[in-house]
């Protein structure tokens, strides 16, 4: 046996040899298309804004505005890899922030715990529904979104905004955000790329039936993915309270859509599987925020900015999807 190559392996080797250098270059370009787009956008906007985009204030602002979307993307990664999506994230963040802010008025440690646990509890409920009820994931997300949104007003106690203590808002700093991002990145890389759970998430996205047949406890993995998303919502809610100093019914507004947009701009495949990568969250959030900031700095009319962004987003997403299918492995 030794020294001999099996027939399929030999065929595979032959096939790999057959990939020309040109195709390899194409593969690299296609695989990294979102990153290339980001670099082109940064370069273009850097030139047309006469370098203003690269001023330390604007770099800091871009990183500051990316921060929560990157974290949100990390949290959604496991669900995204399964081909799932949580449309109740924004409402979940709003509820966690409101409840947390109300408890923070009494006790800071308790308020922090309530913020995180509330969102995580919603994640548990969503996970159980996802795993056991077998209803389309976006329908359950919309349902939970309506349910929580309906509760936000009474939870606010009729108040427009609930302020939080300056002790908490004083925690906001670029350094804190860097530390949180780097720690979260390290955890997500490890959990997503090097654990059985991460592989199982991608396997479910690649094909649920095959995943079941290969012995993966799909229900457990699905539930866990939603719990991670819920936990992320709690952390985002807490960080939002620290950044804005208050909670209201609009806290977290559109967060899920911006995270979803970031992931797709970053090259994530909506059907899940191996097409979802950690870098999608970073590249996508950077693309979104750089465009928002850069077009404004360029002096483009705000109405035209929206149109340009819409056109660019569609082009990038269509191109990414098309190019993904052309990668020869």
């Amino acid at each position, binding site marked *: 046996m030794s020294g001999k190559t099996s027939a399929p392996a030999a065929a595979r080797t032959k096939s790999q040899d057959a990939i020309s250098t040109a195709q390899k270059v194409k593969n690299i370009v296609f695989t*990294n298309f979102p*990153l290339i787009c980001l670099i082109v956008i940064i370069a273009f906007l850097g030139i047309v804004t006469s370098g*203003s985009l690269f*001023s*330390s*204030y*604007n*770099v*800091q*602002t871009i*990183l*500051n*505005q990316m921060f*929560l979307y990157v974290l949100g993307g990390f949290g959604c990664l496991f669900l995204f890899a399964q081909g799932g999506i949580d449309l109740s994230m924004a409402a979940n963040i709003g509820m966690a922030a409101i409840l947390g802010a109300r408890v923070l008025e009494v006790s800071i440690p308790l308020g922090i715990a309530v913020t995180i646990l509330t969102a995580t509890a919603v994640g548990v409920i969503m996970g159980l529904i996802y795993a056991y009820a077998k209803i389309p994931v976006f329908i359950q997300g919309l349902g939970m979104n309506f349910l929580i*949104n*309906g509760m*936000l*007003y009474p939870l*606010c106690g*009729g*108040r*427009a*905004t*609930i*302020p939080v203590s*300056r002790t908490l*808002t004083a925690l906001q700093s*670029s*350094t804190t955000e*860097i530390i949180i*991002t*780097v720690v979260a*990145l390290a955890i997500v*890389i490890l959990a997503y790329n090097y654990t059985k759970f991460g592989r199982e998430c991608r396997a479910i996205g690649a094909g649920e039936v095959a995943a079941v047949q290969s012995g993966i406890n799909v229900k457990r993995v699905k539930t866990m993915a939603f719990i991670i998303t819920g936990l992320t919502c709690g952390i985002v809610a807490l960080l*939002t309270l620290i*950044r*804005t*100093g*208050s909670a*209201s*019914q*609009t*806290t*977290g*507004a*559109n967060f899920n859509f911006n995270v979803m947009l970031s992931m797709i701009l970053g090259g994530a495949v909506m059907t899940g599987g191996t097409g979802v990568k*950690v*870098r999608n969250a*970073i590249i996508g959030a950077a693309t979104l925020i750089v465009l*928002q*900031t850069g077009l*404004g*700095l360029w*002096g483009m009319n*705000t109405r035209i*900015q*929206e149109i340009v962004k819409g056109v660019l987003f569609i082009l990038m997403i269509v191109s990414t999807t098309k190019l993904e299918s052309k990668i020869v492995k």
Partner: protein
Amino acid sequence: MKKLLALLLALVMVFSLAACSGGNDAEEPSGNEGEEPSGNEGDGGETPSGETDENGLVSWKLGMMDPGAWNATSGPLYAQMEAACEALNVELYYVVAQENSAEGHIAAIQNMIGADCDGIILLNGPLVQGIVQQVADMCDEAGVYWSLSWTKIEEGDGNYEACMNSEYFVSTTYEDDVHSANWCTNLLGELGCTQLCEIGFAAGNATGDMRDQGVQQGLEEYSMELLAEERDQTLTSTSDGGKTIMDRFITSYPQMDGLVIAGMSQFVLSGVVSSLEENNLQDDIQVTCIDFHEYQTQYLESGVLDGIIGGHVVGTYYSLILMANLMNGTPLTEEKALIEDNFIELASYEDALIWDEYGNTGDIYTAEETLNMMQKVNPDFTYEDLLAVVDAYSLDDIVTRAEARA
């Protein structure tokens, strides 16, 4: 894996660079005590370039939130601001708040600062979103002057402290919201209403609380009863929501004979009117509201609306006059200005026609009048003169000045 590591390293490097270089660029705040603005030389904005126009007015950049779709309040307000900025050699820079949330507003203000705005004039977004302190911190750190409008701040509350402690805070303008709501409620009392419902802001912001106080005073003065109120922003922020609210009121309180819309009227009034007309109750339920609406003239003509108070579209203009004088090194006052401006009351179709002709134009104050409020152009103009201009603002004042020009 290599690519990922490269990305990670690049990210850490960028973060580190930003962290090392940020935060210390803004100069020591100089306050607004008479000297030329000087705190904008870092990344938070440049000093007004010094390029002067034919009137000797220095060129500078003003940031404002993008007005979005035209409505009867923001339309004339922004039209007036655009006209005044042109007269004053000011570049007006709009930024969109991507989300109507505290986060969205903070990001928009960061983008204004990043675009080198020398000054920022905001409406009531910071008050509504509860981020006045955050705005103060951002502007102080970047050395950017800032003002608020539609925002009453009172000694003892956190917002007042945030503004007064901010080196770069210039002014806030506000209206007597107790009066506006009281005017609406009293008008219903005079029309013989006894059983009212109310649509208003969610409690907790100063404007909403004052309007509630005005409604309460009116209820007591005319011995009327408040049957129900709706303040849920998920309903009060759309026309459909307005219709839903009114349908519910009609079903639940058949004895209702008056409705006061003390807030969010630009969103709910059309829905309310639609519900009244569908139920054929436009003659049985009287309606008054705060904040002008694009269809107010036709509603007043048809009688479905009985009175409307608004026209508070010049507060930002007064803040601009203060800021422009400051930027030109001739501040009108050494103090942080808290200015109360007036509402316009439309109690009839004829009043609405007058407003349409003279007020809804974008040049309530002409370029000439605007220039005359600049000490560089008119050295005799004082802060007291500005307060007199503010105090005179009324339907009569607008008509008189327009006719004098004609």
